[in-house]
């Protein structure tokens, strides 16, 4: 069991807006829409939107082979470069699993923990430290 991909609310299906637009395959900086999406620490010099998002079918992702895949299968896309993590994830070492240790499990997609455009895991606020023994009464 997997929770649905973590889309920004109201953004999917992409074709909703894109069906009226003519695809522009030229690599460029986006100014009007999606200006907030910046590739960071993720080979931003080498890649851009259409390396992963399919140009013809906007509601799909695209593998290097040209195969179109659903957003629910995005791990196959990530696994093209991160083969070692993909293997670890499939065997339950990388990533979080919940549910039953001896039965049905829930697992997460790469994108649930790593923003695909800026994949470094975000820092967290720690819970309070334990009390020092001298303060325990």
């Amino acid at each position: 069991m997997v929770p649905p991909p973590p889309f920004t609310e109201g953004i999917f299906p992409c074709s909703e807006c894109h069906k009226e637009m003519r695809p522009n395959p030229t690599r460029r900086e986006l100014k009007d829409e999606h200006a907030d999406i910046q590739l960071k620490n993720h080979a931003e010099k080498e890649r851009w939107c259409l390396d992963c998002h399919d140009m013809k079918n906007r509601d799909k992702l695209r593998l290097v082979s040209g195969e179109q895949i659903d957003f629910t299968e995005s791990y196959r896309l990530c696994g093209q470069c991160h083969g070692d993590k993909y293997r670890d994830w499939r065997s339950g070492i990388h990533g979080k699993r919940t549910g039953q240790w001896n039965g049905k499990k829930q697992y997460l997609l790469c994108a649930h923990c790593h923003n695909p455009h800026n994949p470094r895991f975000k820092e967290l606020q720690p819970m309070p430290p334990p009390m020092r023994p001298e303060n325990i009464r």
Partner: protein
Amino acid sequence: MSDREEHDEHVFRLTRRKALKGLALGIGTMVLPAKDASASVWDSFFQKNFRELSRPERQKILARLEKEYSATYKKSVRVKDTPSPEGVLFGYGLDLSRCVGCRRCVYGCVTENNQSRDPQVHWIKVLRLSKERGVDLEHSEQYYNPATVPQEGYFYMPVQCQQCENPPCTKVCPVQATWKETDGIVVVDYNWCIGCRYCMAACPYGARHFNWKAPGLPAGEMNPETHYLGNRPRPVGVVEKCTFCMQRTREPDGKYPACVEVCPVGARKFGNLLDPTSEIRNVIENKRVFILKEDLNTQPKFYYFYSV
């Protein structure tokens, strides 16, 4: 001859005076629990070691505890005694390359296992270690409190009961109130524990904790799904420890321990060491693994590993 006389002075002679004194003392002791005048006080006073109980005796005790706890916490509390599952030896993995030291596990554990909030009892201790020194416990810090974690130059190592295959803590118990079950979990019979704390001195991981005061457990926060040897509310003056959440993991629908479920980075792994396809076996066979204080021959079933 003089020797004999001296010796005779030390021979115990039961006189009428001594007999009456003894009788009075005896009656006095028996009257003590009657102050609370409830049948359950007598029952718990004469309760046997958990391992010596017959099936019906256990059922009676569990029913008594359920009644007591339900009255105290004003909700329907369940006390299970689910035994070790067949063919299972529990093992735990902790990925040191992933842990960010956020302490979600510490508080997830407190909530699940009914630890005392005040005075504070934590079964998990998260150590901050510098990357330069590596696993150097002398220089670890557990009171770190920055705005965000992880901090540059540090890594984090949560320590809890290592569920040793060769546990030093159970050997020192003078009353055998703590032992290792067949699924590898080291448990405590809180009703049999006399609170001598020898086990705490024997544990090289600081994984056992003593209830110096009656645990402060607010009724609203009490987890009513409990196990006799696990997370049921503890009395004052007994030692407690991590049980791999046996109230969850021993059930047929084998849920993961609370700390595994709550970890935001998926650094915690759990499963059956006897199952070659389990996640934990995969970790042990394919990653760089170490056990804490290996030289003590405690043989922990808690494996620290590096996934990268």
